[in-house]
């Protein structure tokens, strides 16, 4: 087994003008593992990722990687500690080529430009975009944009990635393909993966463990089969009429 790392999120909270968007949430993630962060719309999933990656200041709580406290590390240094993310609403550098987009992930953590280019090219090829390396990111389909964003995250050679609704905007076939790809990633690259997704069917088949939020609070966590039977989870999902 390769080096095992652990990301520990300890009691983080965030309020927006009195609204407790995230309330005392804790979880941990190990390399090689897939953790599903699920919950109805507005339950605080994105806010959780924003706080863990340093993009949003926390009201309280701690983040640790292998025991090292990174709670106060500025967002632009978080990738250096091995933690990267993608966005629910795709954020690509639209005037850069696909190659350059992915290179950013690598140069952002201090990899030299030339090495970054080679790494980016191989990642894009690996994801089936080898023939669009020099095209601008602007004209891509949603699916390909998602893949470029994923490649950009992987270019940082991370220990942990947080994917915020990576299938949003994709059709069923594209989603299935993407999830087949994601399923293999953690073991192949020794990455701990946190994934936010609405589709329970996909989540159940993909994730090793689940963490369920509702109104910013943890209402269940554990193995997919156990979580599925949890009455509170069922109510939360039926209540929000999600699939």
């Amino acid at each position, binding site marked *: 087994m390769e080096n095992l790392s652990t990301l520990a999120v300890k009691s983080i909270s965030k309020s927006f003008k009195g609204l407790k968007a995230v309330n005392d949430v804790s979880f941990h993630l190990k390399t090689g593992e897939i953790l599903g962060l699920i919950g109805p719309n507005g339950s605080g999933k994105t806010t959780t990722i924003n706080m863990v*990656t340093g*993009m949003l200041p926390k009201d309280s709580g701690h983040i640790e990687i292998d025991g090292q406290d990174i709670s106060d590390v*500025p*967002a*632009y*240094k*978080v*990738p*250096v500690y091995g933690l*990267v*993310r993608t*966005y629910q609403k795709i*954020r*690509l*550098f*639209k*005037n*850069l080529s696909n190659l*350059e987009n992915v*290179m*950013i*992930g690598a*140069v*952002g*953590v*201090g990899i*030299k*430009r*030339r090495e*970054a*280019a*080679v790494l980016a*090219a*191989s990642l894009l*090829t*690996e*994801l*089936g*975009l*080898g*023939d669009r*390396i*020099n095209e601008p990111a602007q004209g891509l389909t949603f*699916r390909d944009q998602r*893949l470029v964003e994923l490649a*950009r995250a992987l270019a*940082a050679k991370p220990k942990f990635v947080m994917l915020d609704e990576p299938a949003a905007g994709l059709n069923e076939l594209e989603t299935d*393909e*993407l999830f*087949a*790809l994601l399923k*293999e*990633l953690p073991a*192949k690259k020794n990455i701990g993966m946190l994934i936010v997704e609405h589709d329970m069917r996909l989540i159940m088949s993909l994730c090793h463990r689940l963490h369920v939020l509702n109104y910013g609070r943890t209402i269940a966590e554990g193995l997919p089969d156990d979580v599925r039977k949890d009455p509170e989870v069922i109510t939360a999902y039926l209540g929000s009429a999600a699939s």
Partner: protein
Amino acid sequence: MKTKKNTISATPNVTGSFSSFDFAGKWSTPLFLIVIYVVIGFFIWWLNIPFIEDIFTSSTINLIMVLGFQMYMGNSGILNWSYVGYAGIGAFFSAIFSMDPMLKSMQIPTMYPFLVKLHLPFILALFAGALIATLVAALIAWPLMRLSDSVGAITQFALLIVINVVLSQWSQVTNGPRTFTLGGSRKTTYELVMAVAVLVIIAVFMFKESSLGLKLRATRDDRYAARSSGINFIAVRYVGYVASAFIAGFAGGLYSHYILSITAASFYLSQLFVVLSMLVIGGSMSVSGAFFGTLVVTLARQGLSQVELGLTRSGFEAYGMTEIVVAILMIIFLIWRPNGLTGGRELTLNSFKRLIGKKKLKPTGNRKKMEEII
């Protein structure tokens, strides 16, 4: 067109044909620009008409300024109004450094004695002047770098005003609002500006392609994604801004040693408008845009000023027509082609081939298809 059907696969399929040095798609750009520039330069030299040579020299100084302007503004997406102020700083200080002390005390009796004593060879004086501009930028820029969009633009504009007021009021350095006359012979020569322009084309292109330039371009397109990819946008902007102040300062020094008498007003709104119109019309996101923008606007200005002259001679007052036409041209571009003539792209061997190949294709009347081909 290729039919696109590539399935997502997790199996690596590295062809090994990838090389990070892409001449046809990338590094041919500086070569193209330099060849075009040098050919024009030698042609005009061969023509040997002093009036046209003068236009070429002063336009080259503009080209250098526009290239430095592109280097920060184009890559960062921040409107950098203060830019010409640094050209002014470089212009005055390089002149102070290069002038003979005797001459200096005669021309500017109010000057600080320690400045009067300073004396450097011309080329060193150019560098020293540019370094002063760089230093000023380095000292004041940091707190401004976090400001983006309209706030950033307004702050930069205010900074230009500050620099201008200091330059036009500091009698002990710049001779105040009076003209600063360098005296002596013209030191900025045809060959010198050509050599500098070639070097600056290379430098600005290399900056764009460097890690830092790449990071800066990423912050331009999406500040959040850049941040979460490990980029401190304030730091990369800072380096880009300060570096572009160096080029501005150097160009300013070339200008003062060409024109031989300057005032702070030479580095204010009208000069800002000149470089801005060139960059906007050419396309601010590419070095090729800076180059062709300068070329096109220079030709347009020369043509227009001839017309202006002709009209005025025939009794029809047309002063200012050139500025108005260029301004309208700029507005038209901002509306219909905000990324300029070049569309933000570089002229490369590949784009050149496509340009030639495209002519052979009959337009099918299908706009979308044409866009795909381009």
